[in-house]
């Protein structure tokens, strides 16, 4: 199977990492089994806050998945050679992230055994139907592209010509997955926090900051663990993308704040008030939201000042702050903030439970496991190629 033999040889450190991930996954599976039998009442969700940690992770990870386009697009449309070496890393990241998205949707279903009803009764007026189409298609596109280009690389050949249009198709498709995901929320009457035309652009901006930031960190980790070096130029180009995307993201966020508060419409304001200062004495997310703001501010300083950005240690710190800031923003605040206050103006409570957190961590662990194995395969292929060239 697909160069899988490369994944079953590795150092002790490699195997201990896999064992750790497997343990986290096992715990999550046990908790999910309990949820499957007992019902979603095992989570902290309620009648009023009906989506929480699971759907928030899904939303955040769609962004990570979409960000693969930020290496594919410059390489294939602008011939930015620096990205040639890491397009495969972007595609594997996308595959892992989309898989996590699908798992998060799956564990959020009240009747998971009926989930294929979405395909048995296709419903074009439901955005969820289109989200399934776009996510499924994106997974397929990236799987085909990664498999074909890596197989060609292993044989020392250029990839077949037919793959080029498939790669080009994956570019708008990446934009579509996050646009459609934003439409899930922004088309609902009575949920004023999401009812904003800038939600999709904001999703894209935050995606193109958080995804490439993660990719930079992954490149830095890989450089320490293997002989593969993405190269300073590649990392600096990615850093520039993160910088622009993060600036645009913060700009979009401030536009939201302006519209909500200058118009003074309570239904638009109150969600921000709830998130940042609290309503009726309840502010469970305020510390998180302010942390997100602080991290965003720090990241902007570190990214915008060239001296800092060019220093790779500082850049690593900047990428961590970007990733955490946006994870809090989308992976915590966005979904819960949309439900509270409720359309009836009530301040509902939500806090994820331990089983809910364990299931969430397990799905993240599945993603880490996939990235580890995929990157291991890709880098082993390159290492054996390099070794073969040296012999010649």
């Amino acid at each position, binding site marked *: 199977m697909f160069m899988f033999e490369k994944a079953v040889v590795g150092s002790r450190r490699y195997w201990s990492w896999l064992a750790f991930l497997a343990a986290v996954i096992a715990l999550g599976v046990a908790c999910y089994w309990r949820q499957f039998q*007992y*019902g*979603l*009442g095992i989570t*902290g*969700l*309620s*009648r*009023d806050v*009906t*989506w929480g940690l699971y759907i928030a992770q899904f939303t955040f990870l769609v962004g990570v998945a979409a960000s693969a386009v930020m290496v594919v697009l410059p390489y294939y449309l602008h011939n930015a050679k620096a990205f040639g070496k890491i397009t495969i890393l972007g595609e594997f990241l996308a595959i892992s992230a989309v898989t996590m998205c699908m798992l998060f*949707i799956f564990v*959020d*279903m*009240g*009747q*998971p055994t*009926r*989930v294929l*009803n*979405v395909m*048995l*009764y296709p*419903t074009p*007026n*439901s*955005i*969820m*139907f289109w989200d*399934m189409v776009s996510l499924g298609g994106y997974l397929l596109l990236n799987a085909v592209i990664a498999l074909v280009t890596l197989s060609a690389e292993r044989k020392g050949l250029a990839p077949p010509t037919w793959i080029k249009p498939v790669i080009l198709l994956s570019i708008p498709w990446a934009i579509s997955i996050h646009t459609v995901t934003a439409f*899930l929320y922004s*088309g*609902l*009457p*009575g*949920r004023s926090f999401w009812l904003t035309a800038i939600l999709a652009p904001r999703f894209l901006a935050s995606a193109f900051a958080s995804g490439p930031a993660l990719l930079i960190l992954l490149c830095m980790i890989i450089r320490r663990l293997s002989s593969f070096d993405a190269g300073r130029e590649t990392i600096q180009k990615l850093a520039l993308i993160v910088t622009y995307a993060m600036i645009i993201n913060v700009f979009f966020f401030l536009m939201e704040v302006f519209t909500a508060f200058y118009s003074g419409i309570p*239904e638009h304001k109150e969600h921000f008030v709830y998130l940042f200062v609290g309503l009726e004495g309840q502010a469970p997310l305020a510390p998180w939201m302010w942390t997100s703001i602080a991290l965003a501010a720090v990241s902007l300083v570190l990214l915008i000042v060239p001296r800092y950005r060019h220093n790779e240690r500082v850049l690593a710190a900047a990428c961590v702050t970007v990733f955490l800031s946006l994870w809090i923003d989308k992976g915590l605040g966005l979904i819960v903030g949309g*439900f509270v206050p*409720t*359309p*009836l*103006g*009530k301040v509902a409570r939500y806090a994820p439970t331990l089983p809910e957190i364990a299931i969430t961590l397990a799905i993240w662990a599945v993603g880490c496991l996939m990235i580890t194995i995929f990157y291991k395969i890709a880098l082993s292929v390159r290492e054996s190629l390099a070794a073969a060239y040296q012999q010649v």
Partner: protein
Amino acid sequence: MSTNRRGFISLAGGCALAWAGKAAVEALSEQASPVVQGKRWAMVIDAAKCLREKGCRKCIEACHRTHNVPALAEPRHEVKWIWKESFEHAFTSQAGEYMREELRGSPVLVFCNHCNQPPCVRVCPTQATWKRAEDGIVMMDWHRCIGCRYCVAACPYGSRSFNWLDPRPHVEAINPEYPTRTRGVVEKCTFCEERLERGLPPACVEACPEKALTFGDLRDANSEVRRLLRERYSLRRKPELGTEPEVYYIV
């Protein structure tokens, strides 16, 4: 059966034509005569009459007993088809500092509005909830629902409940004439479509001692609901959202 190329093509063409024809007939029949569609059920609630008996829960009890609605102690997991909401929460844009004192905090009966443009139906990915063409009731299929709760997020009235747990142990006395639900599906008021079928009014209407609830057909100009709406001033919840709720409140 032997099929040649020509035969197959003409069969496929015939099928396509028949399908297109069916779609065209359906589209035309929808546009041509909306009145032929039949009834449009609606409810008119006389708030003053409803308030007469303090703490009355007869309609709620009748509904929940009839439909095997579980009574869950944990408020997070509550399932409710009809309940009382304070005026300020039911009519979020109507409340104010100097409003009529008797309205402040007064309980308002709320349930599914059976909207003409239901957002819950628009978002459902499996058509497990739909607006019935013949009478406008927003229906549900509890065997098809996948429990994604998109409809719960879409409803601007909080009218939909999700079964966070197995509801059956929490139903006091199971009414064998009505289905119970399983965990993991969404449910709400159905305007008692099972009773309407037998020519009976909704259970809440029947149970109300003050006759505060009037149920009827909006398409019938002589119906009681039309008379009330013609003669009295009425409110609807969040009409500005374009959902066109079909539950009216006479205040």
